């Protein structure tokens, strides 16, 4: 049980650092979803299924959707793949 928690915490912290360091914003959004998912599992381990369901629905669902829409509207959808015709 402790080993499982150790793995989840390690993945969460690595993804949190990746959110800040990745250049592509879509990849940063994916890493943010991983942080939200790890957080949801930790909430279940802390005996709070209500909070875990809320975090899964809002963090991995609504929050990521808001970020994706904003990234699309800001024109940051693609980076660094300049084709030969650019």
């Amino acid at each position: 049980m402790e080993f499982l928690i150790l793995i989840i915490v390690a993945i969460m912290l690595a993804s949190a650092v990746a959110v800040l360091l990745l250049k592509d914003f879509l990849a940063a959004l994916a890493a943010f979803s991983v942080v939200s998912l790890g957080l949801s599992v930790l909430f279940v381990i802390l005996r709070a299924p209500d909070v875990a369901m809320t975090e899964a629905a809002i963090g991995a669902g609504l929050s990521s959707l808001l970020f994706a829409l904003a990234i699309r509207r800001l024109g940051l959808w693609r980076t660094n793949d300049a084709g030969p015709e650019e």
Partner: protein
Amino acid sequence: MRRFTSALFLIGLGLLIVAIYQQLGLQASSNIGQAINTVAADQLGAANFVTAVVLGYRGLDTLVELTILFTAATAGALVLGTRKPSTKRDPDAGFILQTGADLLFPLLLIVGLYIIMHGHLTPGGGFQGGVILASAFFLPILARPGSSIDHHWVSFIEGLAGASFIYIGLLVMFDGKAFLSPVAGNGVFGELFSAGTLPLLYAAVGLKVGAELAGLLANLSDTEAVD
């Protein structure tokens, strides 16, 4: 200079977090929580104690939270503005997304309503179910960006649900109790129609949150792309 002061601030924050761990006093005993756990089942008749706290014992906090959500959604709509009707819309999504959205819409609707109505028996409630309802109403807009939701209906449902939350709380005052006390009989413990006004309050919360978030998402996706 900025990097140096930032590094200094972060080192200080790290030391503060380490120092808090010594003082946190984890595994100490708490009084209010244990007191609520022993009396909530008899006083309110709800099997889910978190629902009992959110709607029964701290109903005023939920009312303030609904106000904050309403302010954020209204301010977001104000900031983003309306779109000029001449700008080009995104093309329709592919076949998979269109078919998937048509199939998922009734399923999401049923799951959302189930989670809202069973908030006092199982983990769930108004906020979780409201978010699922919002995504159910937003999925067709993702599939076909040309069709948008009718903002008048959405605002009407949101206003009606928010007002009914307050009215149910006010009705209790005719009985001589305080604002937002849960009443109207407890019913059989564990049934769907139990726990007094708690399911009604959560239904109002769920509809309000769902309509609000659906309107906010539609506004965000409707705004013109910046180039």
